[in-house]
């Protein structure tokens, strides 16, 4: 699979298909047992970790802090890969952190203890931290999000979608998300990768890949895929499971 420089890739697949594993491999946390992962043509396993961290940041599904850090402290941790051994954060790091917080609309929360935030606020802070982490890189950075909509209600899902698209517009970053929310993926991703049993089933532009035939193959579900007139987005409506009786 490929993630283009300013692309927006969605990794889809049922539970157990290997989405999270793939994400961890992409981030360099796991080594692939076969094949290679290349960042700008360089093998990940031969690139130093701090260097990787300056180009790629992961927003995990959940973040549990062992100790009470403030929001600003959490975001500043994103700047650690840019600091030398005993160097401490300078004014530019603070500026980047504030910009990142502002980009995700969480600047007002900077002094709050992280543990006191709501789920949606926490996620936006972590996204800000990830942005701060990949900010300032010479080439485009990559933001990896693992199942970002799992804990969000409808309103926050919309908010997140808007935020991600907005970030993509303004900043030179690529985004890759792993999710099983087909509609969410359809609303934001330009390209999709379908994973089945640890193998790539299909990859390509969203409209080409999100077809009833592939959905049936991937999920074992008969679904209708249509284009929503007002927004122009693809919408997937599951109809029935393969082999089950008529639709309800």
């Amino acid at each position, binding site marked *: 699979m490929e993630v283009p420089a300013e692309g927006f890739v969605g990794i889809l697949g049922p539970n157990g298909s290997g989405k999270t594993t793939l994400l961890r491999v992409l*981030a360099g946390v796991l080594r692939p047992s076969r094949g290679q992962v290349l960042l700008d043509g360089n093998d990940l396993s031969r690139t130093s970790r701090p260097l990787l961290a300056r180009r790629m*940041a*992961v927003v*995990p599904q959940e973040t549990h802090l062992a*100790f009470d*850090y403030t929001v600003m*402290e*959490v975001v500043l941790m994103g700047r*650690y890969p840019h600091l030398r051994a005993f160097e401490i*954060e300078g004014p530019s790091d603070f500026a980047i952190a504030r910009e990142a917080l502002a980009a995700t609309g969480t600047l007002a929360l900077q002094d709050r203890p992280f543990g006191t935030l709501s789920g949606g606020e926490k996620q936006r802070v972590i996204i800000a931290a990830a942005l701060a982490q990949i900010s300032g890189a010479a080439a485009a950075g990559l933001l990896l999000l693992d199942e970002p909509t799992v804990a969000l209600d409808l309103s926050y899902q919309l908010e997140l979608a808007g935020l991600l698209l907005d970030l993509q517009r303004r900043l030179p970053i690529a985004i890759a998300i792993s999710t099983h929310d087909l509609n969410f993926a359809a609303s934001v991703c330009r390209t999709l990768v379908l994973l089945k049993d640890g193998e790539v089933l299909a990859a390509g532009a969203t409209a080409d890949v999100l077809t009833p035939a592939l959905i049936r193959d991937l999920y074992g579900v008969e679904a209708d895929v249509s284009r929503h007139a007002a927004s122009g987005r693809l919408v997937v409506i599951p109809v029935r499971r393969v082999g089950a009786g008529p639709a309800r």
Partner: protein
Amino acid sequence: MTPAPLGGRLLKTLPWFAVLAIAAIVGGPLIGSTHISLRRAFDPAIPFADNVDAQIFFVARLPRTLAGALVGSMLACAGVVFQGLLRNPLATPFTLGVSAGAALGAMLAITFGWSFAWIGIPAAPAASFIGSLAAVAVVYALARARHGGMSTNVLLLAGVTMNAFFSALILFVQYFADFAQTYRILRWLMGDLDVSSYQPLVTALPLVVISFAVFAWLARPLNLLSLGTDNAATHGLDVTRAQRAAFISASLATGAAVSVGGPVGFIGIIVPHLVRLMVGSDHRVVLPASALFGAAFLIGCDVVARTAISPVELPVGVITALIGGPFFLWLLVRKS
């Protein structure tokens, strides 16, 4: 509180802790059950062999105060590092079996009358340090057994298992000890800072310096580790290396501290908690502050221990426990 840049925060808070530590180190030798004249103690005209005040100050009290500073700062920092490594604010330097190994070593030396006279060092502290090394080695080997990494869950399990195993061995050795030896072991377990010479401090010094150097390097990695090992890795941290460094340095610091003053409890958990309440959770502030506060705290406890019911002394571990109990109650009540 607007979070000032780290440099500013360090400059604002650490001096206070340093003042506290220096006050304790200077004040400790001034207090004691015997009244001494400072003027006489520092009078260079009086030969040392005739100057009782000087000997009480320089042979009895000063080494003891310095031992308190050493043990207090090492145990406090080790507590911070273990809590960061295990991502649990309730971890202590003794959670992973280091002190049980040290206790077993000391017990064996006391019970079987070991003598290292040929090297010229007292047996019990040396045996206790070797015991702590043995415990560390076993726990480390067990934790590494899984695919070369270092799972903190396995670490915790291995440590708890080691604690249980060494405790059983301790009971077994106890069986061979006579009444006097049992009493000595019991008192060792309660902590004793009366080193009465600078030799144990000088012996421990290289280990102290190395431990503090590693702790300084560990400050940022510990911050990242509190996000979780995967997150720490995606932030560019070599997680396994940081965990190993944390485990080994904190264990060695604990082993050295225990070999000097016995397993003094509660320092490794009270001090980190109090310090975090005062300065926040950034390990780059918490570690130096804990070293300074730990030193002052233990010196203070020792002053109470040796003056509360003078001329008889209480073991310093009793004082730290008497403070530790209510402290935890307060923590519980506060959080709810």
